[in-house]
């Protein structure tokens, strides 16, 4: 009896999802103590309402980015730091097409679907550019994507002529708001959709396996007959596409393209989500669901700090402290230490 429970516990703790979930629960636990009504979800004004809804809604863009970032990390052992800038590019192209080049518009100048597709094509081109630099030219991912990290917002500014382009049309607000009478915010559907589709592709095709093998050992996989260049390239294009989706959603929330601020600093959060998800940042095996949980943890943290009335100027400090704790908890070295301690204890008990 005793033995089986011990065995189960071990199985749970060794699961790849264990640490990410524990971290998320830790963050949420603080809320239960601090803000008793944190988990209350109600229907208000015909839509779901509550802190939890805010977290799930606000984390959508980050979830979408984290999915792509996980693939890129796994295949190339590096991160794409241009995702925030690519979001801005996609958003500005989308809004410019919709507004017909004007600074503000009250009627659509082009169908939304065309603008949406154009934005996604542009972001995929950005992704392909990054992918080309990394996979074909073999440039360090961080350095290669630094180009668009700096240039991306400039391009977006160029597209919007340095202004914030407003699309004040209700139909455009749907992607960042609500579909008709549906009580669930639309960005949530985008996030769930992306996670499901990418998961299906990885599961139904051998792509997931290819990515892991390319990331673990590129030359070995090439000798096995895998085109590692193409697979790396593909992951960057996927991330570009996902950044585009995130960019359009973010722009729909504010029905405008704010080239300076859309997706600002989101690349760091996306990388952090991948790390919090228990993924090895130097590539190889990956854990997509872990990254998604990581993304929700980060947003939960932000919302928690708002709910706890931490003043704005001190907010980054608290965020940093929590991140340090979570990252240390997840580090292999720390976990090994803990295991050794536990083992040592068990030995001592046995000896005694």
């Amino acid at each position: 009896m005793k033995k089986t429970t011990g065995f189960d516990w071990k199985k749970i703790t060794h699961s790849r999802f264990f640490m990410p979930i524990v971290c998320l629960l830790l963050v949420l636990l603080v809320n239960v103590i601090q803000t008793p009504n944190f988990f209350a979800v109600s229907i208000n004004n015909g839509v779901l309402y509550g802190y939890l809804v805010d977290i799930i809604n606000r984390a959508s863009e980050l979830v979408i980015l984290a999915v792509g970032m996980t693939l890129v990390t796994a295949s190339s052992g590096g991160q794409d730091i241009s995702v925030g800038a690519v979001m801005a590019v996609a958003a500005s192209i989308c809004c410019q097409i919709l507004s017909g080049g004007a600074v503000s518009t009250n009627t659509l100048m082009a169908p939304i679907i065309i603008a949406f597709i154009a934005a996604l094509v542009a972001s995929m081109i950005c992704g392909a550019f990054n992918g080309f630099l990394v996979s074909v030219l073999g440039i360090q991912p961080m350095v290669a994507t630094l180009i668009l990290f700096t240039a991306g917002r400039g391009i977006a500014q160029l597209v919007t002529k340095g202004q914030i382009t407003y699309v004040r049309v209700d139909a455009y607000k749907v992607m960042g708001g609500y579909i008709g009478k549906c009580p669930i915010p639309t960005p949530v559907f985008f996030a769930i959709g992306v996670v499901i589709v990418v998961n299906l592709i990885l599961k139904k095709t051998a792509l997931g396996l290819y990515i892991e093998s390319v990331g673990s050992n590129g030359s070995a996989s090439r000798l096995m007959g895998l085109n590692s260049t193409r697979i790396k390239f593909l992951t960057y294009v996927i991330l570009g596409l996902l950044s585009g989706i995130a960019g359009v959603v973010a722009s729909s929330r504010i029905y405008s393209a704010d080239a300076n601020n859309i997706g600002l600093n989101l690349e760091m959060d996306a990388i952090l989500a991948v790390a919090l998800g228990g993924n090895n940042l130097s590539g190889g095996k990956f854990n997509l669901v872990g990254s998604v949980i990581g993304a929700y943890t980060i947003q939960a943290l932000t919302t928690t700090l708002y709910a706890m009335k931490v003043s704005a100027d001190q907010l980054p400090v608290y965020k940093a402290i929590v991140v340090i704790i979570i990252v240390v908890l997840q580090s292999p070295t720390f976990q090994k230490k803990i295991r050794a301690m536990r083992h040592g204890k068990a030995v001592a008990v046995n000896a005694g």
Partner: protein
Amino acid sequence: MKKKWLSIVLASALVVSCTACGSKATPTGGTASAKTTDGKTITVGFSQVGAESDWRTANTTSMKGTFTKANGYNLVFDDAQQKQENQITAIRNFIQQEVNYIVLAPVTETGWDTVLKEAKDAKIPVIIVDRMVKVSDESLYTAWVGSNFKLEGQKATEWLKDFAAAKGLKNSDLHIVDIQGTIGASAQIGRTEGLEEAAKTNGWDLLAKESGEFTQAKGQEVMESFIKQYPNLNVVYCENDNEAFGAIDALTAAGKTVGSDIKNGQVMVMSFDCTKAGLTDTLNGKITLDTECNPLHGPRVQKIIDALKSGGTVDKKAYVDEEMFCADTTVPKVSISGQDFNVTKLTQDVLSKRAY
């Protein structure tokens, strides 16, 4: 083969980027022979931050409209695209071209000592507009023209006090949240101070303050959180128009109505800046009071230059006149330490007449 192609691509990219840089380096309208020793036309070098908002564009237009050829000026304009190094280069260019006056709208407060010293050594007066500069020696610049952000805050809160009194609201009836600007920005500091002092003297219930970083997205997110924490809030003090748009969206999504009728459960939104979009919301009653942050610095700068030209002295700090626009006429004017400020009721007429 592959490598050959690559080198061609890279080389052409290099050429393109070089020419792009080259074309950018010369300030627009800047003829190198802009020396004006004839005493008639005055050359003014203006280094602008960029064109990031309607406000900035209006600021540029004001300068360009004031310092025209017809008025006897030759304006050398440089757009720094949000980069300090571009501004420093521009000022050095101005010095080389021996302009008569330099006008600088600095992107940041610090890091100007060296280049302003160079201007001073060249005996060119420097007039700072909009943001302040922090320099070790105050004599490095001649004058500063800009907004009095604290006064803006004081005017807005004084209006709120009078408005509440006129509507028969007690001080304890007001539950205020503050969506702050980017922490450390001079607009944020002044406007927050104005509110904090007023809350203290009037005994208002200032529930919370949190930064919306002057953006619509953050303003919306912060407001969502505020609504849940403080169901009783009834005044939202947004430190710029973009934050107000976000706050209004969040309030509407949560089933609240925005407006000035606090007694009947409406939430009042107050804002700053008076951009066209902001005033449009004031016109339809969503923003009850919008306090102006005037970008029309041109005439003020011209006054300073005129005074300097005739050998007079100028005040180190010159504030531009700023208005207030309200959705109704409950409070026609506010007075702060003896000085009266009119509150304009916004109509379509007033809106379409505005310069920006």
